[in-house]
């Protein structure tokens, strides 16, 4: 079974995580490292995918600054989204040539990882036809946005654990006028560590990877 190194990096700024992903994507392309699965939590930030619509940002820059929210344009698929404390953000850096060479299947598999993990906490989640993400009773609990370069994935998903959902008022999430929810709002009191452990476990099962804790995620090839 192929290995996938995972590490929970804790709180990390969006731009730092972005740079780290780029670094690891480069190393992965050269096969210097195995597949990677980074888990982080971002400070308040709103990001807009390259094909997103700026009008889905409802607040002006001034309002965002006052609320202490950063704004980034980024190169993932999908529209606008919010990240912040209380969210488990996952960035898999996988070489899909060693998986199924199928980007649609990849997105469905990410959904499956989160559906399985939520089930471990008694939450029955599912998919919504035509609306990528993970949903519970018509409310979105996790968002997905991915970029692929030569079959190497980066960006990933954001699962609301105990996110302050009021921050979503600044945007139309993913351009959809549907409500968001969180595990906490669904009555789950699991800790971040428990949720991360469940996600890692399910990730290994769905992608058929042996999950190993990265010795040091930023360990360099040089």
């Amino acid at each position, binding site marked *: 079974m192929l290995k996938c190194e995972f590490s929970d990096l804790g709180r990390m700024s969006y731009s730092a995580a972005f740079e780290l992903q780029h670094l690891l994507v*480069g190393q992965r392309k050269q096969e210097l490292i195995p597949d990677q699965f980074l888990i982080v939590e971002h400070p308040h930030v709103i990001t807009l995918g*390259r094909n997103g619509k700026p009008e889905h940002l409802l607040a002006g820059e001034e309002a965002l600054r006052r609320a202490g929210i950063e704004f980034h344009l980024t190169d*993932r*698929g999908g529209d606008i989204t919010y990240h912040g404390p209380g969210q488990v953000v996952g960035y898999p850096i996988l070489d899909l040539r060693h998986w199924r060479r199928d*980007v649609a299947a*990849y997105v469905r598999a990410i959904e499956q990882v989160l559906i399985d993990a939520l089930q471990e906490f008694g939450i029955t989640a599912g998919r919504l036809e035509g609306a990528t993400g993970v949903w519970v009773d018509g409310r979105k609990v996790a968002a*997905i946005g991915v970029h692929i370069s030569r079959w190497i994935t980066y960006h990933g998903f954001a699962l609301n654990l105990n996110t302050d959902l009021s921050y979503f008022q600044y945007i139309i999430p993913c351009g959809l006028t549907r409500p968001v929810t969180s595990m906490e709002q669904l009555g789950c009191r699991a800790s971040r560590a428990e949720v991360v452990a469940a996600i890692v476990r399910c990730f290994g099962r769905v992608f058929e990877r042996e999950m190993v804790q990265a010795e*040091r995620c930023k360990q360099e090839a*040089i």
Partner: protein
Amino acid sequence: MIDVVMPQMGESIVEGTLTKWLKKAGDRVERDEPLFEISTDKVDTEIPSPSAGVLAEILVEEGKTVAVNTVVARIDEKGEARPAAAAVTRAAEAVKPAPPAVPTVQAQPAPAETAATATESAAEPSEAELGPLSPLVRKMAREHNLDLREVRGTGAGGRITKQDVEAYLAARAARGGAVPPAPAPQPVPATAPPPAPEAMPTAPAAEVPVARPEAPKTRIEPMSIMRAKIAEHMVMSKRTSAHVTTVHRIDMTAVARLRERFKEEVKARYGYSLTFLPFFVRAACEALRAFPIVNASIEGSNIIYHNEINIGIAVALEGGLIVPVIRRADELNVLGLQRAIVDLASRARSRQLKPDEVHGGTFSITNFGSNGSLFGTPVINQPQVAILGIGVVEKAPVVINDAIAIRHVSLTGLTFDHRLIDGALADQFMQKVKSVLEGWSEQVL
């Protein structure tokens, strides 16, 4: 012409939206260089070019959704970069100047090499400047005493052909310009040295050369992934560690004699040359065993002592470097180390290292002495705390018992992280390395 198609991104995917062209019609592209981006359900994907050449035609505009295997563009493999005018393109793009006709995409020598060859090439430009030149073109240039830098190449990839030289000569004659033996002084491209003195004497400076596209003063090229990674690591390391270097002179005479004695035998029996490097690795392992803190790393406010001695050996690659790791190096003898070094270095150069062969080093060694360096101050390979830099091993006069002797010596330095290692300890470490090498038992290999 090569067709570029909308790729198949998965079994269930029948179409994709072309979201962005990363190149314009008329642009030169390299094989595997990102050419355009597509978007399918929450996934943005960069698509690399299937071939090197010039993007001749863009057939599908940004924003259009097309079926898998639809031809979206054509690449002319033999094409020359040109202004984006004829092909499907937008007006705004035409404003941007096209790349100069002189090919800059040929393998570029390192800056140092450019300087070196440029001095020789004042009279006859090198292929590095102009791309490959045929013997006929070189001969014509010599006979007519002309500077090929002035000739506009129209051949494949901007190459100068016989026809180009003839056209240039005809144009020069038509303007009543200089006849062969009296060449005009040429405007010199920004990077080239002044023309050789003998090219100067008679012709007046007023001679106007044939117009040629203005030579660019700079050339922009994105860093390779490896270069970007090295750049990032070097700065990160300098920012992280308090680098200090201590240099010791090591008498390598005993090792040199041993090496001399076994060199032929080792070559014949094992097929590789015996160098000084494995002796240094062996000595470093002994010293690391004696001073485990040099084999440690820092994490937060903790010191992590590594129970294994895994030694990274810096290997220079074309356009970069990599540090493959000899695991449990302390358990190998000199021959085993030499074999590991030869194996890792050759696989590093052919890019066949496995991921775990460049990870997990606990200490590094760099042998810049093989390039003639006396001593250096290398950058620590994070998260390690020290690196041994080996200076050239050469004969030098040394005072022994008040007499001058000729010995093999090497100035070898330890660059260490002063956050964790104090100067006195670093010097004790080096004394250990020194004593192992200087007192090498002749029986042992």
